[in-house]
């Protein structure tokens, strides 16, 4: 990667341009509506001195508890005969100002401390993090109410205290954002290029975190409004100036005489908080979905796309059947096509019409670079594709039965006749159960045996896969065992159902080199002993040379070449295969089967 691309990759990818975010936000009717409501409320308040029909404290006794839309008091009169509309208008400015105080205090404290903690880290980070945890655990509203005894009916000071109490929210957000950005290459590059810390923070860090900060601000404003109104509702505000919460309080005390007076301040409070939260939520969604991920298509949509694609090639009327059933063929993939949603209507295909055969008792390698679609094929054989994946063509025949398109057949085969060995052993064990528990659950899900028999069988298997003390292993949690041990446990888990086919997805890639050789030996021994077929997904020709009988080479979702291992290494047909073989380091080249016997296995 060139330095240029490093320098430009950062801010652009984390923070999409301002314009496009705003445009997409305003296209969302909920967001646009909320924005209009919020702006209207601001104008309603700011314009009070010009537009309010009456002085907020003017009382007309004859209009006490007047009904709305009936008199010159448009929204009615309160219990002291004052105009509710005018009072609401005058109260709005105070409310908004107080909320700005909350925002300014919390954002000010939170952003500065968050930047310091995230950017410089170390001891100061530990201390700040600890303080923020303490403050977050404060019973905030109780403290605010208690401090009324000192602060008195001064809502601005109360709101400043609230700002301090919720500053940790900003602190945590900024700290985690800065931590993730600080480790980005473009920040390193900027540092190497000699930019000062202040410049890096203002140019690179602040730029990329402003989106989440705006989102957080809208939530803080909403919190500020509801806490402020709550305090005033409790009678802890200044009773001489009108406020939303204070008006609600008075009206609520008077609810049996004039119920509608409660409605107006309640509506105003609700509309303001709701518009702010909706704005924040939609903005967050807009920022988050700026990538290329699309949600899963509906099953009917996938069916439609599939019918369309198949219709253009040939008309199939019935369920697909294996057109070339052969007794020694264990697994036959035919014309498999699958992809991921590229919009709400279309699928971007990543596996293009793959054909593949695994014979009984054969180890078949599936080789290709990462991203070539190998794992997708492995998952489709087991029916464990991610939910967004869409199969848009083809079949997977297991012993002549289409398990890809028949979910019942898949259910009967998976875990019983077909098993799976994953790539990354440490993330493939449930961290909350012991090894024994999860193996037993797995086995008893597919075999009708007692717990006792299951334990006996699994302990035997653990011993067979090379675990010295199976009983001890049984009671360990995944975080207590090593990667190599975990992979042996997973192999035992795959063997437990006595499968005819094992799909192994890069089973040695995540392991140490020494352990890799052991695990491959184990797989080969087990295969000789139990005679199951294996589809071995790998990117490593060394592994292919070591244990595979036949091999298929994959490139960009297509199989470009398929033959037995000797032929492939001796006379690769496809140019891509030759290129892959040429790019192998010598130590792997020396392990091709012809010479394997005479050459020491590389450490």
């Amino acid at each position: 990667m060139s330095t240029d691309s490093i320098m430009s990759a950062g801010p652009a990818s984390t923070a999409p341009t301002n314009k496009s975010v705003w445009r997409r936000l305003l296209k969302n009717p909920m967001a646009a509506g909320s924005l209009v409501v919020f702006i209207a409320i601001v104008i309603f308040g700011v314009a009070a001195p010009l537009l309010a029909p009456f002085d907020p404290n003017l009382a007309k006794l004859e209009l006490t508890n007047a009904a709305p839309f009936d008199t010159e008091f448009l929204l009615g009169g309160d219990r002291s005969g004052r105009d509710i509309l005018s009072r609401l208008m005058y109260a709005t400015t105070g409310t908004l100002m107080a909320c700005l105080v909350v925002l300014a205090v919390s954002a000010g404290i939170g952003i500065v401390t968050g930047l310091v903690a995230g950017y410089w880290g170390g001891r100061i980070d530990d201390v700040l993090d600890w303080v923020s945890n303490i403050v977050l655990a404060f019973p905030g509203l109780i403290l605010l109410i208690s401090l009324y005894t000192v602060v008195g009916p001064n809502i601005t000071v109360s709101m400043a205290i609230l700002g301090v109490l919720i500053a940790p929210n900003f602190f945590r957000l900024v700290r985690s954002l800065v931590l993730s950005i600080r480790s980005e290459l473009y920040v390193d590059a900027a540092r190497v290029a000699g930019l000062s810390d202040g410049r890096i923070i203002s140019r690179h860090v602040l730029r990329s975190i402003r989106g989440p900060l705006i989102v957080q601000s809208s939530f803080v404003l909403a919190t500020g409004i509801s806490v402020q109104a709550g305090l005033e509702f409790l009678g802890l505000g200044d009773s001489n100036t009108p406020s939303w919460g204070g008006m609600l309080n008075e009206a609520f005390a008077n609810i049996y005489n004039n119920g509608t007076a409660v409605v107006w301040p309640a509506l105003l409070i609700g509309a303001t908080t709701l518009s702010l939260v909706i704005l924040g939520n939609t903005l967050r969604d807009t920022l988050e979905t700026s990538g290329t991920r699309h949600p899963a298509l509906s099953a009917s949509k996938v069916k439609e796309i599939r019918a369309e694609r198949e219709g253009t090639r040939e008309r199939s009327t019935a369920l697909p059947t294996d057109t070339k059933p052969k007794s020694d063929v264990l697994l036959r993939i035919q014309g498999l096509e699958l992809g991921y949603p590229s919009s709400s209507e279309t699928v971007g295909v990543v596996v293009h019409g793959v054909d593949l055969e695994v014979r009984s008792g054969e180890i078949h390698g599936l080789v290709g670079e990462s991203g070539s679609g190998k794992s997708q094929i492995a998952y489709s054989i087991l029916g464990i594709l991610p939910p967004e994946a869409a199969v848009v063509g083809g079949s997977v025949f297991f012993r002549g039965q289409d398990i890809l398109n028949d979910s019942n057949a898949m259910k009967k085969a998976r875990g019983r006749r077909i098993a799976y060995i994953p790539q990354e052993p440490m993330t493939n064990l449930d961290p909350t159960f012991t090894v024994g528990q999860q193996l037993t659950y797995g086995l008893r899900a597919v075999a009708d045996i007692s717990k006792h028999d299951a334990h006996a069988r699994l302990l035997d298997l653990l011993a067979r896969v090379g675990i010295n003390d199976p009983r001890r292993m049984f009671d360990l949690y995944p975080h207590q065992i090593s990667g190599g041990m975990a992979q042996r446990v997973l192999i035992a888990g795959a063997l437990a159902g006595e499968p005819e086919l094992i799909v192994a997805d890069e089973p040695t890639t995540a392991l140490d080199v020494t352990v890799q050789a052991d695990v491959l030996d184990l797989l080969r021994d087990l295969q000789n002993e139990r005679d199951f077929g294996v589809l071995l997904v790998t990117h490593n020709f060394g592994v292919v040379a070591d244990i595979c009988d036949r091999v298929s080479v994959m490139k960009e979702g297509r199989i470009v070449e398929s033959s037995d291992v000797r032929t492939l290494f001796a006379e690769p047909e496809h140019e891509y295969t030759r290129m892959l073989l040429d790019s192998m380091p010598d130590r792997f080249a020396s392990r091709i089967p012809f010479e394997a016997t005479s050459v020491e296995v590389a450490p």
Partner: protein
Amino acid sequence: MLNFLGRKLFFALVLFLAVTALTFMMVFSNGAASVRQSLGETATDEQVAARVAQLGLDRSVVLQYLEWLKGLLSGDLGASFATGESVSSMLTTRIPVTISLVVLAILLTAVLSVVVGVCAAVFGGWVDKGLQFLSIGGLALPNFLVAIALVFAFAIAIPLFPATGYVPIEENAGEWAASLVLPVTAILVGLVAGSAQQFRGALIDTLSQDYIRTLRSRGVSERAIVLRHALRNAASPGLTVLSLQTIGLVGGAVLIERIFVLPGVGQLTQTAAITGDLPAVMGCVVFSVLVVIVVNVCADLLNGWINPKVRIS
């Protein structure tokens, strides 16, 4: 595990001292003003000064705080400025009300948000969209607005439940429950909206983990995967949210108790603050910090029980 518990207890102690010291020193920084307030406008300066001296409010706040801490160790929280009643006995009559409210609300929140969160995460589609939509409303609307709406709807328009008042459970369990239906519902709306949403997120996260795929490949049923494996792994983040909500609820209960006229700690906090009854205010602060601490310890213990990494290390 012992080390882990020790750290947590140390944190709890620091929290307790930080909160009480901070509030005490601020609240008692101007004790004379509160005395003047409690004696009424007719009191002369001499009367106020005499009372201040009698209560020891003329000493430094640090000294007063240490004395207060000493009293606390023997369960003595001082006497109310307003009535002279001991603060501990004021609290004992009020704590059951608030605890009923908070415990009921949290238990129901836990159950409902697990059910709603699981449905939304597993079924997706309209269930999920509905949850997203409702949760925005539930989160945005302050609970006192929901409470007022409930009073309007189910106490005034359709008088199904009492609008105000509280009946102790030992007097009449049925009436106790009826008196809590509306208050608890008012609290639930916002709490469930928030935690179901979080729980849904945690569950979706868990369901996309590698080990879930491996469990599927072994033929474990979808039902067992969700109920046995995913739920347990998603419980940790869920617990964190729930404990934060409980802490927030102690404050939220003040508003709810006021609207439904429940004689709980929240109501005491409010009246004590308005009348400048400083010892009572401090009593309420102690109660709420203790709730926070108990909730945190419970959450940590549950978390240790669920998560072996916390327990064994």
